[in-house]
């Protein structure tokens, strides 16, 4: 073993370097304050290692990125590794901030160590950009929305902005090349730049270190050498930080939001470390905006870089006061703006509602990803093919200007000015029974705001009740209930009792007289009221929405309902596509959870 080591030593001469590093003697002894630097260095290495491992599975394309990230989360240890990579990136930024402030407070930037300070400060924005280019790689809606805005901010830079944006997006806007560009920056260019600068930074640190380097092979006994006195402290700090990171990764994993889809509602907010700029820009607008996004951050960066050249105070006391004041002002200002920004959002009910909705959609995407296959079209189709997600959105887009879809407690989608029946529970016995109740039928939840309020249907039901009188009332109610059940059986959303259904079918064509106007299977005629055959079944609803003016439905008595898909030969010209219609109807027909009485 020893001979091998000697053989290597003769060729590499590593013992000299190793001795130099280990046997350095710290003038003021080992310190916890110095551990931030070493901790940052090892975090950098950990980021490279975990990142490299993630690269083994990740696929940087719009159609497969989200799915591959989800795949990583599902594979053994993948979720943990991605979690570490994610939380460590945040930890690095915090540590970097602490490190910079520590160096500033101790005045460790003084000559001849100016370049230590300057290269360190150059690393800071690079590390930030490193995380910024990493966040959208999962191709989640949040990440893509963030990079879209960040790209626009970049484009706002005078003169070179549009060029920088082209490099970032691979074109004028986020597209097929954008993830590839982000990937190129995140795993290629930035690690090279950061690695190179780190080498220069560390070289400068060692070259101008205040440590004494004994040339002897063994340090004097009792000397507080770097190894193991400082190293032990470094490792303790690293272990504490990595324990927190590891625990977060183990407990929560890295977040994965819904796959990017221009159809999704999302209000992008920057990560916490940009919140101060987000807040700051509220005080600028229009053409001065780049002051907040570019001028102020660069002024801070260059101002900090100039500190070693500005700090020329004769009195060390004044210098210390100045440095402490600068640190306090920066930390305080940063904290104040950040807090203001979060406070602003916490007060904004609209934003909170958007966030909650987005969280729910993201949660849904993960549920779907576990149960539904992801096809070559990508994870974007998970939510696009999901009636539970698309139904309310399609309803909100096309229907809610007239119809509500709200339960008895008023929860759900509510029309600003309801002018057509509430469609909650459509096709159920209870809902159908509403049309057969003289009070409900003319209420706003049913025909109240339509021209049918005064129509034959309402009059007919009222007529039935007045003919039955007080004594026949309960019997009629029973009979109408059975009619509703018979129609609910046509809808087949719920399965009412068979005896009730057959009684209802009987009554429908005879004593209740539905088929006087409506058609029901081979009874009655089209032309004066909607067809009751297959009432509220999937195909009935689809045809009704597509063309309420068809003879089978309201023909020329249609109130105000638009034809959503009348043109069968040119589906692209319709208000709603066949696929959307399918989703909307499937959602409308989702059985409602009956509330416990």
């Amino acid at each position, binding site marked *: 073993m020893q001979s091998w080591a000697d053989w290597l030593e003769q060729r590499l001469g590593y013992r000299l370097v190793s001795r130099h590093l280990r046997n350095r003697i710290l003038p003021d002894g080992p310190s916890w304050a110095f551990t931030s630097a070493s901790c940052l260095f090892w975090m950098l290495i950990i980021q490279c290692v975990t990142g490299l491992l993630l690269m083994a599975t990740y696929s940087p394309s719009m159609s497969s990125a989200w799915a591959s990230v989800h795949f990583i989360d599902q594979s053994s240890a993948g979720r943990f590794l991605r979690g570490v990579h994610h939380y460590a990136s945040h930890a690095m930024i915090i540590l970097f901030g602490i490190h910079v402030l520590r160096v500033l407070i101790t005045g460790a930037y003084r000559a001849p160590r100016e370049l230590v300070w300057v290269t360190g400060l150059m690393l800071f924005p690079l590390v930030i950009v490193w995380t910024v280019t990493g966040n959208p790689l999962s191709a989640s809606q949040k990440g893509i*929305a963030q990079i*879209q*805005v960040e790209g*626009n*901010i970049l*484009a*706002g830079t005078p003169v070179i902005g*549009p*060029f920088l944006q*082209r*490099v970032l*997006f*691979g*074109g*004028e*806007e986020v*597209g*097929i*090349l954008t993830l590839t560009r982000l990937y190129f920056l995140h795993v290629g260019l930035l690690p090279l730049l950061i690695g190179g600068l780190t080498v220069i930074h560390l070289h400068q640190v060692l070259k101008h270190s205040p440590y004494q380097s004994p040339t002897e092979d063994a340090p004097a006994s009792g000397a507080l050498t770097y190894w193991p006195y400082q190293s032990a402290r470094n490792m303790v700090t690293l272990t504490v930080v990595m324990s927190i990171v590891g625990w977060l990764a183990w407990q929560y994993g890295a977040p994965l939001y819904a796959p990017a889809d*221009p159809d999704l*509602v999302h*209000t*992008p907010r920057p990560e916490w470390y940009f919140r101060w700029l987000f807040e700051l*820009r*509220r*005080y600028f*607008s*229009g*053409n001065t*905006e*780049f002051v907040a996004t570019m001028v102020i951050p660069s002024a801070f960066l260059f101002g900090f870089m100039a500190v070693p050249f500005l700090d020329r105070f004769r009195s060390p006391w004044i210098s210390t006061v100045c440095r402490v004041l600068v640190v306090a002002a920066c930390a305080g200002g940063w904290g104040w703006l950040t807090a203001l920004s979060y406070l*602003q959002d916490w007060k*904004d009910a*609209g*934003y909170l509602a*958007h966030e909650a909705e987005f969280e729910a959609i993201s949660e849904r995407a993960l549920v779907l990803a576990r149960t539904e296959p992801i096809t070559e079209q990508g994870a974007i189709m998970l939510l696009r093919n999901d009636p539970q997600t698309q139904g309310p959105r399609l309803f909100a*887009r096309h229907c809610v*200007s007239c119809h509500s879809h709200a339960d008895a407690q008023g929860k759900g989608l509510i029309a*600003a000015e309801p002018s057509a029946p509430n469609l909650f529970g459509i096709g159920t016995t209870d809902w159908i029974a509403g049309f057969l109740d003289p009070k409900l039928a003319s209420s706003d939840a049913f025909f109240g705001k339509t021209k049918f309020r005064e129509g034959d249907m309402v009059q007919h039901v009222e007529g039935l009740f007045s003919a039955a009188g007080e004594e026949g009332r309960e019997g009629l109610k029973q009979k109408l209930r059975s009619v509703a059940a018979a129609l609910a059986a046509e809808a087949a959303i719920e399965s009412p009792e068979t005896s009730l259904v057959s009684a209802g079918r009987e009554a429908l064509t005879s004593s209740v007289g539905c088929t006087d106007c409506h058609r029901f299977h081979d009874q009655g005629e089209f032309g004066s009221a909607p067809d009751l055959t297959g009432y509220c079944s999937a195909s009935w609803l689809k045809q009704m929405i597509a063309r309420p003016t068809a003879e089978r439905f309201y023909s020329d008595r249609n109130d105000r309902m*638009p034809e959503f898909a009348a*043109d069968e030969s040119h589906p*692209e*010209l319709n*208000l709603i596509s066949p696929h959307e219609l399918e989703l909307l109807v499937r959602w409308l027909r989702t059985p409602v959870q009956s509330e416990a009485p």
Partner: protein
Amino acid sequence: MNRREILAWISRSLAVGVTTVIGLPGIQYLLGGTRSNGSGGSEFARLIRFKDLLPGRPMMVPVIGQKQDAWVRHDRQVVGRVWLVRKPGDASDPSAEGLVKVMSTICPHMGCQVNSQAGGKGFHCPCHGANFGLDGERQMDPRSGERNHAPRNLDPLDCRVVQDESSKEWWVEVKYEKFATGREDRVVTA
């Protein structure tokens, strides 16, 4: 100039030359690289039947068009979205000037998608809280009380209402364009 200086000069020049030969095409490649990601929006695209627009109720409609995205050409894709507002009033001639207003849904501030304000009174950007009226005019920001972050009004798009020859239906058509965000003047980007 002695031999030493000449050789040094040659070495430097050659080093600069080699760097340039790789560097310049490298920069050109990153900056130019793709042709447009854009949406080829020089033609009018059909949006919606005129009769499906309710007066005074803003409606968001996707614009379907051709889109070149790096090496992929999408023939029928959503290239963007627009807000349509039909002014209340006489609609006997749907093609009357100014009866329908079509605006980009992209906030001129940072490019977020503006939503319809509750009650359909106008538009609201969820990112920095810019508000716009139904005609796309900037309105006061309720958060700060004075400032609206949008540098300009919502971008109006060239539109027309035309009658289909075979079906005799009136259709709203738009020439879809995208504009650079964060500046007071309108610069077409795609």
